[in-house]
């Protein structure tokens, strides 16, 4: 690994016990485009912004979400070229495993091997750490799984996670919206909303990329047409909530909880809007510190998906 001129590692400890190069790598990741992943009960979705430097770039040729195996996909935040190299190495490792055992590689094993490669680059001569964090989404015998791998080589399993520019906002948003029994379509909906939160400019199927894997264990990157469908659905449910009392921020949501009249109107309207029945649940199921009277509770149960 690395040039023969340098047999010593360029990643060395600072007196405070930190590996400064890795911290810098994480900064590089933090200034990369936002990406996120959500694990649903029956699948995983990963998504990313696809901001291109100019309108002249052929957006169809840019693929930020890649397959590692037919049932494992990956997205990144950080440096694109480093990502390409890692994808190449991971694909090779997955295929080596398959050749040896004639079995598709389990997600945890692939994540571990990839993380090992990333760790090697923090402890070898003449190389620098990778400037990417990966979100690996896969579905194997253990069910849907989502892992984040950092430049240091550490990996974590997440129920929902975000990386890149807008990470703190996105994570707060996800913490509020995430539910254990979310289904894949809900998760895609939530992913789009999360991306929208910190998006500069108009969100469209040309400047985001979404990949999903369901119980069929086939990882797919959504086509622009499919993304357009989901975006339309998001718009519809956003418009619906706007019509019924302008729910947009916390204050107004709390008002909705306690103001009986507004609450009733919301329920009725969401009945009319198809495909967004899931929406009311977010506002009412996870808000903290707001008391719900028994009558409100009845309405919530009535509208549960």
């Amino acid at each position: 690994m690395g040039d023969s001129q340098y047999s010593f590692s360029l990643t060395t400890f600072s007196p405070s016990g930190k590996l400064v190069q890795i911290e810098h790598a994480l900064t590089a990741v933090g200034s990369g485009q936002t990406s996120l992943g959500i694990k649903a009960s029956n699948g995983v979705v990963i998504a990313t912004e696809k901001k291109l430097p100019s309108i002249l770039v052929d957006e169809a040729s840019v693929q930020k979400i890649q397959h590692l195996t037919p049932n494992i996909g990956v997205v990144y935040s950080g440096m694109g070229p480093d990502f390409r190299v890692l994808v190449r190495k991971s694909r090779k490792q997955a295929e080596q495993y398959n050749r040896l055992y004639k079995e598709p590689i389990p997600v945890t094993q692939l994540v571990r091997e990839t993380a090992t490669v990333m760790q090697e680059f923090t402890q070898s001569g003449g190389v620098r750490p990778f400037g990417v964090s990966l979100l690996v989404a896969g579905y194997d015998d253990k069910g849907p799984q989502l892992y984040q791998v950092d430049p240091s080589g550490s990996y974590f399993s997440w129920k929902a996670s975000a990386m890149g520019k807008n990470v703190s906002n996105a994570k707060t948003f996800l913490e509020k919206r995430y539910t254990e029994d979310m289904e894949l379509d809900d998760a895609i909906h939530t992913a789009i909303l999360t991306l929208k939160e910190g998006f500069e400019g108009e969100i469209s199927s040309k400047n985001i990329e979404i990949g999903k894997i369901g119980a069929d264990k086939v990882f797919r990157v959504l086509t622009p047409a499919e993304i357009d469908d989901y975006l339309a659905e998001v718009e519809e449910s956003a418009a619906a909530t706007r019509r019924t009392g302008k729910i947009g921020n916390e204050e107004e949501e709390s008002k909705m909880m306690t103001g009986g009249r507004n609450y009733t109107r919301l329920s009725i309207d969401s009945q009319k809007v198809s495909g967004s029945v899931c929406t009311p649940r977010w506002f009412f199921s996870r808000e903290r510190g707001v008391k719900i009277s028994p009558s409100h509770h009845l309405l919530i149960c009535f509208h549960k998906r």
Partner: protein
Amino acid sequence: MSIFEYNGSAVVAMVGKNCFAIASDRRLGVQLQTIATDFQRISKIHDRVFIALSGLATDVQTLYQRLVFRHKLYQLREERDMKPETFASLVSAILYEKRFGPYLCQPVIAGLGEDEKPFICTMDSIGAKELAKDFVVSGTASESLYGACEAMYKPDMEAEELFETISQALLSSVDRDCLSGWGGHVYVVTPTEIKERILKGRMD
């Protein structure tokens, strides 16, 4: 004399109803001289996968140690046991690694897979897998074993009947082979238990 016939061996595995049986002879010889009558050819990889190796005894032992090593690491890394099909693929890969200086043994692998479905296979010394639905044989007595098994085998036998069948097939075949014999060692494996039995045949 071929190097495969240096030590002498007879190994057979059969499929029953949600169970399998794997059997071997017990003779270890150096050409015509018998030097041991309790040689262990069948080894347990885990409760549901067994491997029996025929051929040169030193390679039998070394290969077994290598396979146990690989399986233990797999268990630690993946936190699960290997499926029999996966194990067979691993053995095939390890044997082919030594394509131009091979391990001089032919393995017989038997295991219970998903849904208690029995799995058997054999391979040659460089890893060519041969899957079978009924029985597989290996060793110096293989030709006799083929004949005996073909005659005596029935599909979907229960554990006890399977034991009888495989024992008769083994003992009658090793009687026709001067390099194998001195009793038999039979494992009958069902989803709930492993029965190990020693057979007493013609002690010659």
